[in-house]
């Protein structure tokens, strides 16, 4: 399980300067999808239905960034590159950024800023209800993403609040699933669902492992097969 111990991933500790460089590159890369949309809009290269293209694209990128954000902890665990954690806030904020664009296309192009009409749509159609809920739940996470807010909330409380991202990811996939449901076209939602499920199950697996290790320690039994046998007979 531990890729580092098998020498698959070399140890790497970036200097502060290198880390700033990595962050800058990541920032530019994360902006590419929206820059591509802007360029394609100006060049009239979005196809016959530009608005649909923008809606789908911004929705897709929200899900990509949610997956990337959720991938940080497992990747860190596997590679022991703990500095990856320093990139997580940016990834999460980009998920929020694309979610904002996605919501704006809905409010602007679908409803032309008619809020009454938008609310009717949100309340009437389950797939929009879950998508909208996921978006609303992202707002407190984005607001409390600053160092100051982490301090003000305290680490533990902050962490509990930000575990909401698991729910948000599930709602996002449900939104996508229901959007595709009428067309029986589940290939993509299944793929996203499997990726998120894997990322969450890995956490669960490691957590159970850790609990087991802690219990063993508490019992004072030595590690190894013998220890386990002795424990079961205990």
């Amino acid at each position, binding site marked *: 399980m531990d890729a580092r111990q098998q020498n698959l991933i070399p140890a790497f500790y970036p200097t502060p300067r290198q880390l700033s460089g990595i962050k800058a590159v990541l920032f530019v890369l994360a902006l590419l999808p929206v820059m591509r949309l802007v360029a394609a*809009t*100006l*060049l*009239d290269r979005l*196809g*016959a*239905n*530009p*608005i*649909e293209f923008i809606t789908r694209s911004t929705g897709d990128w929200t899900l990509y960034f949610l997956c990337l954000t959720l991938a940080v902890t497992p990747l860190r665990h596997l590679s022991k590159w703990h500095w990856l954690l320093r990139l997580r806030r940016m990834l999460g904020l980009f998920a929020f950024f694309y979610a904002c664009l996605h919501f704006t296309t809905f409010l*602007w*192009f*679908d409803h*032309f800023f008619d809020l009454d009409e938008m609310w009717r*749509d949100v309340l*009437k*159609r389950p*797939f*929009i209800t879950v998508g909208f809920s996921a978006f609303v739940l992202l707002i407190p996470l984005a607001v409390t993403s600053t160092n100051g807010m982490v301090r003000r909330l305290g680490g533990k409380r902050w962490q509990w609040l930000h575990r909401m991202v698991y729910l948000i990811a599930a709602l996002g996939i449900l939104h996508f699933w*229901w*959007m595709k*449901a*009428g*067309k*029986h*076209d589940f*290939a993509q939602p299944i793929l996203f669902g499997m990726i998120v499920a894997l990322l969450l199950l890995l956490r669960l697996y490691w957590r159970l492992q850790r609990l087991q290790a802690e219990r063993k320690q508490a019992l004072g039994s030595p590690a190894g097969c013998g220890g386990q046998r002795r424990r079961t007979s205990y």
Partner: protein
Amino acid sequence: MLIKHNPNGIELPFPSEITPRAVFESRRKFIRQLGVGAAAGVTGTLLELPGNEAWAQAPGAQKLAATVNPAYVVMDKPTAYKDATSYNNFYEFGSDKADPAANAGSLKTRPWTIAIEGEVKKPLTLDLDSLQKLAPLEERIYRLRCVEGWSMVIPWIGYSLAQLIKKVEPTGNAKYVEFVSLADKKQMPGLRSPILEWPYVEGLRLDEANHPLTLLTFGMYGAVLPNQNGAPVRVVVPWKYGFKSAKSIVKIRFVKDQPRTAWNIAAPQEYGFYSNVNPNVDHPRWSQATERRIGEDSFFTKKRQTLMFNGYSQVASLYGGMDMKKFF
């Protein structure tokens, strides 16, 4: 506006009320540029958008001669040929809108045989040429409304399906007409995906099939149908959502019972057998009250109102006394 009614119930404006083509073309072009080009204007390069000439004839495609039928012309501006042939739902070639244009090249449209069978006195099996010569070809400009909330305006070429129905003489048992599309795995990569039951089957009530608006279609934009638009022969039923208009038809069957149609099997709560364009009956996942006209409605315009029966009110009499919410 005064409306003149002719015996078919087809609404025709007075010639004096029709905006001269040159005027509306320049007006549309201006609106388009204002819309799509507003952002581009900032950079100083105003985009040259395809004008109305683009639809007149399909570039490079095999021409198909037809006489314009003035009874079936809408005042809406036809959709650009490029949009009508690159943004398609034709799941036999893939579920993405760009898939049919990319994958339908593998479809062999000749030789093509079509069987007309079932509850008829004179069943027929015809090759494409004989079928096409059965009645004079007409050009008709119809609105096309997709169930997904977008619309186009397309100059089709064909003749009323009623002409064919007359030839085969349906028996008293014939209550419905079923259209079966080609399902050939070798030519149609989309059949590998189980999104729908193949072959694609669509159907109409006999009186709907006999309505003069229902067009047996061989061409569009002055040329033969491109593969991605349902070559070599399809139906076009302009008052119903687009998926009711079966493409690449190999069999037309006259039957006693309501056919089990592809989308109705896949999601009965979302796609009814009738599927008449109706702004008052929402799709479970979106409103059908408005639509976006491809190539026209830009970022800065509200979506346009969808019309009952897609504006073809002459079909209303087919559904007298029917609860359209129940039979959606």
